């Protein structure tokens, strides 16, 4: 790295305003040729906005972008690709039913042939893969490839388009720890070959491991760009990121499990759509404990929660809640048993965005006291309870007649929490409850759930964030393709072991 560094990309004084927020305020970013440059920042810090501007998805209000010393102005991703800027989104932009080869050449115009120049492309791809040490099955269907391989296809796709800079948006979010290792090998190789990479992540250890320099954004501003020296540590980065020293652990009392609240006995559910179904899951969950379910996204997390809530058909096995058999009971009946359910997709499955907050808060039992009776809702009580809950859960909203739509993501999640755990609950099923939340809101969710646990609720905590699982759980289970790989006490948890289980390897 001692050689003269050549500047590849410069974003100077970029400013982008939305209705009443400034997403990027005078942000500057310099990326050298052949470096891995991490972009770090808290929720809403403006990383995505900056990258969307670079990739031509958004128009900047002010500032300049210089690429290879020339000022460029991009209005679409097509122009960005043309210029040599590639982006690998968190959700891959691949056609499942196409082969790798077809995906790579999709959208390219090469020559004036009527027939696709498949063979020529195949040779070129093979050569590319060789030179970067990537091995992919060119003729395989994308849908048959594991996630890590699909990501490789995205990388080759960008390389095939002669990208000199690759924007990678949370590339490790969907990978198992083992796949992350392989990705890092690839990234190092790309760096050696002189490609530059902008690596967006919030996982500090990864950022420390892979990047040459780290740019940190906060509240739409570029806080600092620092060289990644060996004495830099996670704590320093985190402090930079949130602008203050943060507490890294939650207060947690020892766990004292009580009676069994939820028990699953050899349960099965069919796969539906993109989900993988549930295969022979059994476990017991007791009062006062949190069972954390880890796993890579899409391995049956939603199937499991929906099956328990009566939203998915149980094909075999038995589910009991507080001793009562609720196998294939209606959601309404299960809902009647003081259960809190925080579904994965809060925007669609938990809230009605065009309802006011008070109606959203009354949605579970509008026909039961104190919200009303079978024939009439009691709006006085509904408003009063809503006001209390909004206050109790610190929801930033002008009043309870505000539409849910007008709240920020974090506050919407608080409204869901207020509804689901705001009253006495015996069982809480929380699926990705901190998704999209910043550190403060995440801590609020943790505190709320821990308070419920100490108050005697049994909590099933399903998350893809290993850190969260380790922080919160009393016991940990790992889901892989609808199978519960193992359940063990949190004290015995080793990250390495969980990683292997998440990848489907029994240990």
């Amino acid at each position: 790295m001692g050689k003269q560094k050549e500047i590849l990309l410069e974003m100077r004084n970029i400013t982008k305003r939305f209705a009443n927020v400034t997403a990027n305020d005078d942000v500057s970013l310099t990326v050298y040729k052949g470096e891995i440059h991490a972009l770090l920042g808290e929720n809403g810090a403006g990383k995505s906005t900056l990258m969307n501007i670079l990739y031509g998805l958004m128009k900047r209000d002010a500032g300049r972008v210089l690429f290879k010393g020339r000022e460029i102005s991009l209005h679409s991703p097509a122009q960005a690709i043309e210029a040599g800027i590639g982006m690998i989104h968190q959700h891959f932009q691949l056609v499942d039913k196409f082969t790798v080869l077809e995906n790579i050449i999709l959208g390219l115009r090469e020559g004036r042939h009527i027939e696709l120049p498949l063979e020529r492309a195949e040779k070129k791809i093979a050569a590319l893969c060789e030179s970067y040490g990537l091995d992919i099955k060119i003729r395989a269907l994308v849908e048959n490839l594991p996630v890590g391989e699909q990501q490789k296809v995205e990388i080759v796709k960008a390389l095939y388009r002669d990208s000199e800079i690759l924007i990678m948006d949370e590339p490790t979010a969907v990978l198992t720890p083992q796949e992350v290792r392989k990705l890092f090998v690839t990234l190092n190789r790309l760096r050696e070959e002189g490609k530059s990479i902008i690596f967006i992540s919030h996982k500090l250890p990864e950022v420390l491991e892979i990047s040459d320099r780290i740019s940190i954004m906060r509240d739409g501003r570029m806080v600092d760009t620092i060289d990644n020296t060996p004495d830099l540590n996670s704590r320093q980065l985190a402090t930079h990121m949130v602008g203050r020293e943060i507490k890294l652990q939650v207060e947690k009392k020892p766990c004292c499990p009580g009676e069994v609240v939820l028990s699953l006995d050899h349960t099965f559910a069919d796969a539906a759509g993109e989900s993988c179904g549930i295969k022979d899951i059994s476990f017991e969950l007791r009062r006062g404990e949190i069972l954390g379910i880890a796993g890579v996204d899409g391995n049956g997390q939603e199937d499991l929660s929906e099956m328990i809530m009566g939203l998915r058909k149980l094909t075999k096995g038995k589910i009991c809640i507080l001793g009562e058999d609720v196998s294939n009971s209606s959601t309404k009946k299960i809902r009647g048993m003081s259960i809190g359910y925080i579904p994965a997709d809060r925007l669609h499955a938990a809230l009605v965005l065009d309802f006011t907050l008070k109606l959203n808060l009354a949605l579970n039992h509008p026909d039961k006291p104190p919200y009303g009776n079978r024939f009439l809702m009691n709006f006085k009580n509904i408003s009063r309870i809503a006001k209390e809950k909004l206050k109790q859960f610190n929801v930033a909203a002008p009043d309870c007649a505000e539409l849910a739509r007008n709240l920020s993501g974090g506050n919407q999640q608080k409204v869901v929490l207020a509804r689901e755990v705001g009253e006495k609950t015996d069982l809480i099923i929380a699926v990705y409850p901190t998704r999209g939340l910043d550190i403060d809101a995440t801590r609020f969710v943790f505190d709320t759930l821990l308070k419920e646990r100490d108050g005697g609720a049994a909590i099933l905590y399903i998350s893809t964030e290993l850190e969260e699982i380790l922080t919160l759980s009393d016991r940990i289970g790992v889901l892989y393709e609808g199978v519960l790989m193992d359940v063990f006490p949190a004290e015995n948890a080793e990250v390495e072991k969980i990683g292997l289980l998440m990848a489907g390897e029994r240990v």
Partner: protein
Amino acid sequence: MRGMGNGIGRKRILDVAINFSPVISAFIGILIGACFVALWGVSPIMFFAELVKGALGDRLAVGSTLNNAAPLLIAGSGTAIAFRAGANNIGQEGQLFLGGLGAATVSLLIPNLPGVIGIPAIFLVSFIFGMAFASIAVLFRLLKGVNELLVTLLLNYVGTLLVAAMVNGPFRSATNVSYPQTDAFGEQFLLTNWPQFGYMHSGIFIAVAVVLVSGYFLWFTPMGLRIRNVGLSPEASRTTGSNPTAIFVVAMLISGGLSGLAGGVEVIGRSELLRQGFGASLGFDSLAVALLGDINPFAVLPAGLFFGALRTGMQTMQRSIGIPSALLDLVKGVIMISIMVGGAIKLYVRLSGVKKQKRQVEDDNVETSKEQ
């Protein structure tokens, strides 16, 4: 700060525009209609003056406006309930005709029934007939997944033709041969009307009652909440313990039933017998009424009165000053299309809001930073 205030101001204007969009689009429709009228060589001012005079000019006109409004209000309320539940019932025309058939069935098959039982029986049977007709679409949807929009639309033809077949066949009057219609119903089956109020019949009171009950049902009862919940977010309604399918069925049946009731009221209130094409386009107009009323029964009330007046005004103009009926239909059509386009734009604005929010959340997810 100034920018912020501006943003909120603009947002408020947009909110108001969205809330009053049906009225705004009806007004735009009238303006476009005026252009067509001018093209016909008729003075638009004269045209609309005549229209207002025809609709509200004297007692007879007002009575007729109210009589026209009654079925529109009843069917319009039902439509509002269906649409709030996300059930796309556009078969009001057919269901209304079936309701008329129901009224005829009661009064012709049991002619000796006393009025005290007869009239409620007619209401009940016409409600059931409309409901049964709507249930065909429900069955198609539940069993075969066919969109109810298509089935109810096509059933409109079946409904009107079924009535035509009946009044040309088994129900055809033996005494009157000039027009396909039934015998006059017994006196006891007819709704009271008051000549001193322009022959207004008591159907309007039933209609207002239906409107109020429907509005109350939708906005103040738990079932109404669940209905609106399904329409706005079927997923959220499932997770909060509702059964979207059951609610779809209920909403479709209520809506079909109310359209049927509208037909029954029309037949025993005004036509006093069942004739071919007795309430032509009342069902379609009620659809426009529901949209103009922002699919809110309380707002359906003024919308229904407006369309009642429109119908009456046009009927009068056609009779008295010989404006071609094609022009009248054109103007009405333009107004209706304008209302529907307004509704579509509103929906688009709302949906694009959802999309924006969804994108925002996805961005949030991407930017999740809660490590450690």
